[in-house]
């Protein structure tokens, strides 16, 4: 979590932007490799349930995570491996959740992308799309009650999830309360197999903002530069008290909905078009062009990331799974009111 600087006019600011960019890139890289690892583990039958990757969306996600400060709130969704890491999640906790370690934040009760630490402002998604936004609103309202000004809450949402009633109610609620919510919309052109032509009929998802009375900005989601700038500015505006901010990124999901899905339905024209660019590659080219890194450095970073991941996975694989016999089968915290019957 680093403070993004948005107008690198001065040398100092330029240096800070470079630092942010490099940090964001490394989170992207780590996320991509971590996702690849999960996919490999899934293929070899080591992960139960689904595996959901953020391939192609790492720039947007990393920019979101890195634009937030400690004490901010983040409600990521399924394609946010990069943002989660940038917001402070450890590779270990991600691996523990996917592999169902008893030591993970979810203790094996929930898995894969359903992980978080609410008390650290890092919200564990429920599956129902759109449902996390109003939860972020609640935290932000509570901060206001407690006079903790200056907090920002970011929530991720996909093109498909903009069709949910929950999205609508929550964004409107944030606008009415003028909460510092940043809603990061990833228009990756598909919701599972459903193309956006079957999802909405507005010209652009950014057209929705006026209907809520919130500010909006759009960006090329394949370009880390644009993402850092646009998301960063939105976060700053929210923090400055300008109410909810919406940012809309255009990009493409470069993987299946989950690893079980070969995504054969994706329009080849889209893949070839600029929205189909791999943000990872775009960022690397930029790094090289800027001389912020050379290929050898990139290779070292990659090796370091792979090493970190392998180490974490190895450790988690030695950790115990949850034990149904010692497991406390209790859904409420008030022990004396637990029925516990079967």
């Amino acid at each position, binding site marked *: 979590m680093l403070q993004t600087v948005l107008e690198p006019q001065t040398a100092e600011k330029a240096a800070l932007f470079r630092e942010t960019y490099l940090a964001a890139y490394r989170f992207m890289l780590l996320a991509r490799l971590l996702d690849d690892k999960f996919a490999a583990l899934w293929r070899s039958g080591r992960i139960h349930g689904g595996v959901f990757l953020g391939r192609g969306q790492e720039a947007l996600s990393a920019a979101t995570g890195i634009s937030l400060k400690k004490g901010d709130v983040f409600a990521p969704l399924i394609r946010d491996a990069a943002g989660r890491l940038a917001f402070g999640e450890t590779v270990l906790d991600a691996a523990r959740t996917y592999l169902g370690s008893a030591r993970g*934040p*979810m203790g094996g*009760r*929930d898995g894969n992308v*359903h992980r*978080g*630490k*609410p*008390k650290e402002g890092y*919200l*564990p998604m*429920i599956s*129902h799309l759109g*449902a*996390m*936004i*109003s*939860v*972020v*609103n*609640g*935290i*932000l*309202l*509570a*901060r206001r*009650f*407690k006079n903790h000004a200056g907090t920002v809450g970011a929530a991720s949402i996909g093109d498909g999830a903009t069709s949910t*009633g*929950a999205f609508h*109610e*929550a964004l*409107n*609620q944030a606008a*009415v309360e003028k909460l510092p919510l940043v809603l990061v919309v990833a228009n990756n052109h598909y919701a599972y197999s459903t193309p956006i032509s079957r999802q909405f009929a507005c010209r652009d998802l950014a057209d929705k903002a006026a209907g809520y009375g919130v500010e909006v900005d759009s960006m090329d989601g394949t370009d880390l530069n644009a993402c850092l700038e646009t998301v960063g500015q939105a976060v700053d505006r929210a923090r400055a008290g300008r109410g909810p901010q919406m940012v809309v990124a255009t990009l493409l999901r470069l993987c299946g909905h989950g690893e079980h899905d070969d995504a054969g339905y994706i329009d080849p024209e889209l893949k070839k078009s600029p929205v189909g660019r791999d943000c990872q590659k775009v960022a690397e080219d930029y790094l090289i062009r800027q001389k912020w890194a050379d290929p050898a450095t990139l290779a070292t970073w990659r090796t370091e990331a792979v090493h970190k991941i392998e180490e974490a996975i190895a450790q988690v694989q030695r950790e115990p799974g949850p034990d149904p016999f010692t497991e406390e089968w*209790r*859904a*409420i*915290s*008030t022990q*004396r*009111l*637990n*029925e516990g019957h079967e």
Partner: protein
Amino acid sequence: MSITYLEAIREAQAQALRDDPRVFIYGQDVGPFGGAHKATKNLAKEFPGRVLDSPISEDAIVGLAVGAAIEGMRPIVEMQFADFSTVGFNQIVNQAATLFWRTNVPCPVTVRLPFGGTSGSGPFHSQCMETVYAHYPGLIVMTPATVEDAYSMLLEAVAIDDPVIFCEHKFLYYHLKAEKLPSEALPVGKARIVREGRDMTIVTYSAMLHEALEAANELTPEGWEVEVVDLRSVKPIDTDTVMASVARTGRLLCVGEAWPWGGVTAEIIARVSSEGYGLLDAPPQRLNAKDTPVPYHPNLWAAHRPTARAITAAARKLLRL
């Protein structure tokens, strides 16, 4: 001075707001207007900034409450009518109810559901939803039947670290009066034997308690002594008290205002039959509303829900078995 069930609910909220700066109220028209039922009358004025009107967005209302609870607040949410909680359903059963289990972070949200039938209210302003919420793990479902319980249980609901579905019966709002608010209370989770008896146990809750008591009184001249148990909360259910009562009387009639399939009455009978089979001298019986939406017309409504008369008839039949 006398105080109604509705006033008790208002007073409990005032008390909670006074005692605990973490408490706030959120819902449609709860602010300056004081709520559709007037359960938050004057609270916005007394506690500025802590009683907030929401948009007509039940999903977001509950979601916001969960977020605030994560952050240490103790929100009270009012659904204008229990029936409208169906559009906030997902946030209640999947967000609020699972939070503690998933994360060990408690979720002290109180959802007030003005519920139950009143004459002329029709299918969408009369529903009993306690069954649906009690089925989900992670929720506590309270169903106070008296002015005193409305007060003390609502205070406890706010104090409890878990999501509470607080089912307050609209029929009782003005119907019930007490002399004063209680200073002591039976804790939530304990049922109350409201009337002692020897010949039969009626287990019930909420508005039906009063129909059951009337029925019990009807039967006295006939020589029957009917024990009446008020469950107070339907999740958890105080099985021990129910079982002890059945042990004394040998006969069980369960009465609920909800629809017949799989509700509180089925759950009570299942528990008593499987765990206290030997205690029964006759087959356990139940009486619920009819299996249709709640009708608008007073004639139909009176036939749709159990009444003292119907309970008396069912009890008489059971006493003869």
